[in-house]
């Protein structure tokens, strides 16, 4: 699938970078193949969708009973929600209503600059070089790592955690409504 906000080149850099942050092992693929770049692309391009892909719906996903599809119906944003999330994603861009307490650098700009700083040849570089560059750009890597964790261990409806594989690699059941857990499962070893 084509990215909605990233360029294909930027997407390729994120596939490689996310895979260094959470690498593949015998239990599963790395974060780059688990949807982390797609999660980030969906957040950066959230306003390409209607409703914007900020808050997944409820109450159940269908993965543990109940009708499927509710998580995929994203919540509508109100006027102020949209202002907050556009500011967070797009930056304040000199608009007075987004700069009441000063300018805000948006996630889009942080990603565009951060990916550029990792180098045009990042995806093709040896892993030691990739790790070294990630370490040298710590502020961006901290941001990328947080989003990678959200992607791999959050609900798949946000674009990451493909087919729940991120949860499976760590033995986590994810959302469990409406099944829940029995009292015996809660209290026993």
């Amino acid at each position, binding site marked *: 699938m084509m990215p909605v906000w990233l360029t294909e080149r930027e997407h390729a850099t994120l596939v490689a970078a996310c895979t*260094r*942050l*959470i*690498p593949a*092992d015998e*239990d*599963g693929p790395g974060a780059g193949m688990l949807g982390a770049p797609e999660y980030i692309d969906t957040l950066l391009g959230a306003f390409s969708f209607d409703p914007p892909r*900020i*808050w*997944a*719906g*409820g*109450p*159940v*996903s269908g993965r543990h009973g109940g009708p499927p599809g*509710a*998580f995929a119906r994203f919540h509508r944003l*109100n*006027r*102020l*929600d949209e*202002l*907050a999330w556009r*500011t*967070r994603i797009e930056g304040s861009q000199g608009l007075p*209503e987004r700069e*009441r*307490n000063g300018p*805000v650098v948006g996630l889009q700009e942080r990603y565009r600059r951060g990916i550029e700083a990792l180098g045009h040849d990042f995806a093709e570089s040896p892993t030691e070089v990739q*790790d070294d560059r*990630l370490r040298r750009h710590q502020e961006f*890597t901290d941001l990328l*790592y947080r989003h*990678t*964790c*959200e992607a*791999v*261990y*959050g*609900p798949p409806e*946000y674009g990451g955690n493909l087919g729940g594989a991120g*949860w499976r*690699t*760590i033995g*986590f*059941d*994810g*959302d*469990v*409504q*409406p*099944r*829940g*857990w*029995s*009292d015996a*499962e*809660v*209290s026993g*070893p």
Partner: protein
Amino acid sequence: MTLDAVVVGSGPGGAAAADVLTRAGWSIVVVEKGRNHLLDPEDLSRPATDFSNDEVKFLQRHFLGPDPLLEPRSFRTGVEDGDRLVVGDVNSVPSTVGGGGTHADGKVPRFREEDFRLLSTFGPQAGADVRDWPISYDELEPYYAEAERSIGVAGTAGANPFASWRSGGYPMPPGAPMYLATISAPAAERLGYHPYPAPTAANSVAYDGRPACNNCGFCSFFGCPIHAKGDPVALLTRVMATGRAELWAETFVSRIRWSGRRARGVDVIGPDGVERSVDARHVVVAGGAVETPRLLLLSGLEHDLIGRHLMVHFQTIAAGVLPVRLHGQRGRSVTHVHDDAIVGDQRAAAAAAEAGLPWIRGGMVEHGTPALPIMEAVLYPWGERHRQLMRDSPYRERLAALIMQGEDLAAPTNRVDLDPHVKDVRGFPVARVTYRGGRHELVASDHHGANLGAILGEMGAERISISTSPGVSARGGMSLAPESRHVMGTARMGDDPSTSVVDRWSRVHALDNVVIADSSVFVTSAGYGPTLTLVALAARAAAHLAGTELSPTGPEVSPGPG
């Protein structure tokens, strides 16, 4: 038509007041600045379906609000920090229909008798403003019992040897203990402590038309997808079913309009951003202990005590890693607690004496375990070790935590006021929190923290660490804002208008028809979560306002086990 009352805030306090007022036949509007994700927009007397087991939505994306970009607060530890140290999320409680009730895991203990007469029981402390409440536990007890019925509380009467007296049993028996508690409670008992099932507003059985909790595990920080939690959903659905209330969500109250000794109504800014005036015979303020003093200050009330004596709970967190997996993602976030650190013993008295203090009191100790994977993953380093750590899971699967909600003594320098520069999205000054724990809190934390560590040792935990929130450096300096969402005391209750903001009926001394229905009115913080106490006080204040008697509403209480 002039409304009988406008209720500012739809959290547990505002909902409890609204419930009493509508049952008394009053026509009211409940105004809430956050969104409505709690009630069905097609029929506000029914619960909504917006909540879900979604760690991204609730913990990473401010679904329950407030969004710190829209409604920040500022923080400093004292005037020597200058105007502020940080701007952002400071002690924020959800800004949404249902307020703080939506995100809690529902531990709702009562205070103890002596919490209402702290000064006469224990005496003063240098540097703190220790006082008695103008009301007693005995006066509040019927309202505690009613609050437990109306929101639905599960517990075992008699299980806690230090509990205050009760006029009856709990409406429900306690729910299933988490696996951790089956290890921590016996260990605590072996060391002489008295753990018991936490009184919890989560249904252990079907109750009042809502289902039993199915132990999904997404409890603290999450709205309940099946409405098994005793958040204000039970109160608010009942309020809306009377037909005498409107709910105005996404509506900000910018000012109480008043002249002389009476409020005339409030100014509001609705979802369209347009400001207008609403007339009302009475105003009930329930914004929480940070937003309520902010509104009083924005309204031009000038009592010097407004915003002062902010109390949080000074949290002491002991954590250790167990060899066994605890699967803390199943069930509620905490099922057992003990009160020994509140009651104290000879060792606590000796620790106080050694520090030159007359006495120390700790707080309720929660036996809990964290359980969610994003929360865990960001704590581990990235790279080749990441996934192995996630599988071994010393944090999510094996960490045992004992968290003490330490009593915080009131101090006039700990306060809420208006930030001189930072504004919210609507252009109004935000609340600034100035807070630093006092010597009592630090000494109590040191003493009881060591005891918590010993319990973890008895449980077989390794890598035991003890920390506090706010953090304290080796040199005794305080870190940034405390994590506690328990905020209290900023419009203190008392009989003397020169030393308190509201009277014994929670009515603002200076305004005859304005009542405060949240934890702002607390005189002491106790070592217990504030929710049940603020619900009881809100219902009592509203009953007095409407001139009605307390009338039981909840389902019949059977004499439960124990």
